[in-house]
């Protein structure tokens, strides 16, 4: 089962994980990654008051669906869920949830890890943060490119 969604509103990550695990009783291992809005930013300065993710409809969801197919081609998964927020979020809100279910745990770990590295560095999202009442766009992180390089690929 593949489930890829762009989501406009806050969502219940734990509930999604529960439903997904229950839908895959043949899977011994279910690995999930939850990314949530941190109140303190990696950049210096004031705390983050809000975060906004912009997407471009003709590219973003199709790109996520292609990523899911790529992941399924690389590991023996029973199911893969990729949910990603867009729009404005508050600290603590979930941003991204990836859940991989597989018979053996190595596959699920690698699949979730790979999916996250590619979502962070290759998916069509643009992020800005609000601090002290001011919005500022976030530049790509070099670390994200380094994470991607672990999989032997260069950025598309």
């Amino acid at each position, binding site marked *: 089962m593949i489930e890829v969604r762009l989501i406009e509103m806050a969502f219940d990550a734990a509930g999604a994980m529960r439903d997904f695990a229950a839908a895959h009783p043949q899977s011994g291992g279910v690995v999930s990654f939850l*990314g949530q809005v941190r109140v303190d930013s990696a950049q210096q300065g004031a705390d983050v008051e809000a975060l906004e*993710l*912009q997407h*471009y409809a*003709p*590219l973003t969801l*199709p790109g996520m669906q292609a990523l899911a197919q790529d992941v399924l081609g690389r590991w023996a998964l029973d199911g893969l869920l990729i949910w*990603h927020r867009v729009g404005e979020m508050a600290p603590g809100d979930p*941003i*991204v949830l990836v859940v991989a279910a597989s018979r053996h745990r190595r596959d699920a770990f690698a699949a979730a890890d790979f999916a*996250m590295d590619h*979502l*962070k*560095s*290759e*998916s*069509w*999202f*643009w*992020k*800005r943060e609000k601090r002290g009442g001011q919005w500022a*766009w*976030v*530049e*790509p*992180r070099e670390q994200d490119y380094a994470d991607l390089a672990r999989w032997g690929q260069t950025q598309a």
Partner: protein
Amino acid sequence: MARLVFLGRLADLAGGAEREVAPGPLAAILSGLEHDLVQALTGARIRVALNGALVARDGLVLKPGDELAFLPPVSGG
């Protein structure tokens, strides 16, 4: 008319997420825009998508109804 779409910080520079322009060669369209916006849109890290598909920008000609999106480097998740 054709449409230009500006993502991320490019929308701030353009003063909006979209702009209607007369169809024609991309070079001619760009020549009608503000200088600092053109500089940003033609930066080496800006990619373009025509009607939802990534394309090379050399020799692009926009037809009526076309949508050309300018995509700065992503900063997702």
